[in-house]
């Protein structure tokens, strides 16, 4: 038996309604499409089981969209399929995203039964006015009900998603909300800064956004509010000790994961590939199956996507497929590793790539240390607090050329 570890991401692209800031692949649809989608997803699970069936799966992350919108029978269908065809570790972290307003006791109990042991609740804000502007369907009371139900059902690992820098938000409203959340004592808190993306309803609206100074003041206050009980381990993530999200850490540590479902991204054998963004293509693809050999050869580099236009050029199966060069690997190592508060292990870089980090990136590292954005402590290179404010500026120096 193969003891290689792998994470699995499963994408559920459905929502009750799309939020005003969301630029991800998610939408509302009818029940029939959901059924067809889950059937296709199961076919994809089966196909990959031929290739990765003997890996040991130590994390699963079911993301969206809103996975909790699915009728619970459909959730059961793909979870059963997953457990039947993959080796899921007994102590695997199995997370699912859920939105307040889509949960009920029956669903929650079923999730528990299906092996899901971590729930990520998309709250975003505790203030009704702010939730309304974001286009969220729930209010704070609904969230509280969901949270209590989860606790009662025995969920001992819960994340709460918050946002800062959203329209109508003030420093005071943010801090007050964060204190309320801390009172609830969740194991994990994610706090993302709102980015107004092109193509979202927000992009063309006049928004009453907090100014940059106020927005940064909010972010800088987070550790003070959360205190010693929580620690920041990643640019947007805070948790109690031992409750860091193991699946997400795989992304930043460049460990392998398989993405299943619409537009899901995978990283295996130093190859990044991403499923089609088109749900009709996705569903029709898995009505006929039997391409696992070809995919395996593609990942192993025995075949190229050019020889198999069906898989790439027409964007039918994969919208992206890329074998990483050595430079790509080092670049990713930097800009992904620097997301973590502990940063990059300098000796490990050299061990991994056979070249010292200074030889490769010395100028850039020194420049940003000089600017007070990077720092070194013992064997680790990491972003300072100011560096985390300007992370893109630092990261972008480690890509391309």
């Amino acid at each position, binding site marked *: 038996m193969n003891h290689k570890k792998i994470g699995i991401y499963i994408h559920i692209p459905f929502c009750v309604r799309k939020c005003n800031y969301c630029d991800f692949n998610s939408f509302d649809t009818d029940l029939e499409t959901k059924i067809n989608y889950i059937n296709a997803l199961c076919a994809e699970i089966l196909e990959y089981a031929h290739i990765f069936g003997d890996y040991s799966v130590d994390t699963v992350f079911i993301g969206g969209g809103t996975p909790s919108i699915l009728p619970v029978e459909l959730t059961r269908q793909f979870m059963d399929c997953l457990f039947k065809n993959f080796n899921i570790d007994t102590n695997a972290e199995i997370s699912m995203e859920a939105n307040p307003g889509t949960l009920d006791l029956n669903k929650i109990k079923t999730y528990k039964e299906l092996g899901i042991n971590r729930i990520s609740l998309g709250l975003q804000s505790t203030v009704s006015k702010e939730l309304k502007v974001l286009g969220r369907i729930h209010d704070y009371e609904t969230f509280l009900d969901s949270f209590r139900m989860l606790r009662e059902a025995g969920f001992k690992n819960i994340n709460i998603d918050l946002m800062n820098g959203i329209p109508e938000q003030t420093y005071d409203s943010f801090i007050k909300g964060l204190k309320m959340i801390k009172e609830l004592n969740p194991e994990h808190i994610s706090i993302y800064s709102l980015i107004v993306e092109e193509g979202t309803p927000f992009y063309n609206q006049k928004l009453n956004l907090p100014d940059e100074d106020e*927005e940064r003041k909010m972010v800088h206050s987070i550790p003070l509010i959360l205190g010693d009980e929580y620690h920041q381990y990643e640019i947007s993530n805070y948790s109690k000790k031992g409750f860091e999200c193991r699946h997400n850490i795989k992304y930043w540590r460049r460990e392998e994961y398989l993405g299943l479902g619409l537009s899901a991204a995978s990283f295996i054998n130093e190859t990044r590939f991403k499923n089609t963004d088109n749900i009709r293509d996705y569903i029709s693809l898995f009505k006929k199956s039997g391409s696992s050999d070809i995919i395996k050869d593609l990942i192993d580099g025995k075949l190229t996507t050019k020889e198999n236009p069906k898989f790439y050029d027409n964007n039918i199966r994969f919208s992206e497929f890329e074998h990483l060069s050595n430079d790509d690997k080092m670049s990713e190592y930097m800009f992904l590793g620097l997301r973590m508060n502990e940063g990059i292990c300098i000796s490990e870089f050299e061990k991994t790539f056979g070249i010292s980090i200074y030889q490769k990136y010395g100028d850039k590292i020194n420049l940003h240390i000089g600017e007070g954005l990077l720092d070194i402590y013992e064997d680790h290179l990491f972003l300072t607090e100011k560096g985390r404010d300007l992370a893109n500026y630092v990261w972008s120096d480690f890509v391309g050329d």
Partner: protein
Amino acid sequence: MTDQSKIRNFCIVAHIDHGKSTLADRIIESTGLLTSREMQAQVLDNMDLERERGITIKSQAVRTVYKAKDGNEYIFNLIDTPGHVDFNYEVSRSLAACDGAILVVDAAQGIEAQTLANVYLALDHNLDVFPVINKIDLPSADPQRVIDEIEDVIGLEAQDAPLISAKNGIGIDEVLEAIVHKIPAPKGDPNAPLKALIFDSIYDSYKGVIVFCRLMDGKISKGTNVLMMATKASFEVVEVGTFGAGQFFPCDELSAGMVGYFTASIKNVRDTAVGDTVTEAKNPCKEPLPGYKKVLSMVYCGVYPADGAKYPDLRDALEKLQLNDASLNYEPETSIALGFGFRCGFLGLLHLEIVQERLEREYNLDLVTTAPGVVYHVYTTDGEMIELTNPSNLPDPSTIDYMEEPIVSAEIMVTTEFIGSIMELCQERRGRYLGMEYMEETRALLKYELPLNEIIYDFFDALKSRSKGYASFDYDLKGYEKSELIKLDILVNHEEVDALSFIVHKDTAYERGRKMCEKLKEEIPRHLFEIPIQAAVGGKIIARETVKAYRKDVLAKCYGGDITRKKKLLEKQKEGKKRMRQIGNVEIPQAAFMSVLKLDDKK
């Protein structure tokens, strides 16, 4: 020897867009040397750039054969002339190679500023000019009004002018017959010493320079030892021939009255200056042809590679371009802000843009160009005169006695409703009003003297926008005049950026400095620290803006491990950074160096 009475050497003059190139196409097509299938849309303009901009940059010539109604075959040499004021001298030399000219006037628009400028230029060269009225099939055409206008304003007989539509092939036969009857045959002496006018030349990597010339007297053939009378260069002729459309047809000999080319393994177009006279070395003609002028660059700017490592590539590209473009000057210079580059001299702003585009397009170079300036005459207290092409080289003010700037006489033709706003524009640009003539009730010709440095920036754009596109413009260098000029310096984060300095009149310095700071504030991205942008005259700050420090640049979310998407975003951000120049610790985007060009806010 070709019978001179059967040769017609002519050109077509017109205001831009009145249909010069289209008529040339029709003439070439109708004379049968080319089949319709071979015709590209516009045969004469064979550079891509020209086709895109709809203007002719280099002079060209075509030789076609026309079988006239009298039964004789006539050789037509159609010499195409550039159509922009930047190239006035080239136009004048092309005209000098002709015996007559066709004046094309748009049946709807009538006479425009360049119509007048070009027709007067043709008449100055003693050419016989006959008009044709083009675009008669336009709904707004009013041929009789235009005919009357030609007679009233220019004084040319126009009642029997062919009424044509070059685009739709109407009336072309009439034009061909008129060429035979109204353009005089050349009257040179084939037995006199060789006397030929160079009206253009191009560089060919196999044959060397191909010299375009009009033989006034004498003959030239393979083996002739020729002497260029102005440049004193002499060569042995390798090949002579005539012009197809974009092709060269070798022949045995060219003789008086003919238009053709010769090659002589010449390495550089500088030896074959436009307007120079070619004669035979051992039997020279007594006097060169009149009108030769050394070409002067009117506009200068710094040209730098965006990537400093590409400096040798830029030098090679300029060298190659210069082989074909004798009016392009360049010499190396260094800028603290931009590193190693060249100070380049051009005939005008259009010429500058064309060279810049060719460097970027044909030589694949990414360039940073500084704001263009003119040549100032700086008189120092010890009586010396310095020709200043780079503002950074201005001597210490205490050693300057006075300065002079180039002045042009400009003619602007405009419909009467816009006279007010155009006069206002000329006033703002320090223009000196000379007078106004009414062409007809609704149109007037405004005459101004303007400092050249006020029109090389955005004058043309401003003119067009303030007249809703109806004004047309022509100018000629008049000379130099004393002026109160000062150097405006720009400081970014307290460091002077030499490439952003420019010379202005003292009355407009404050206004320019203020606008420049505002513009730069828009162009310079936010940094980790606050950046003051200041305009200074002689160390005194006259305007200031501040680029606030940025506090936040983070896009943390990363759905479902889609690292590729994240990477693409970071790459895009990095691309943006590459297009910047580092000044001290401030990154300035390339566009900022041109921003001084776009300060007219009345658009």
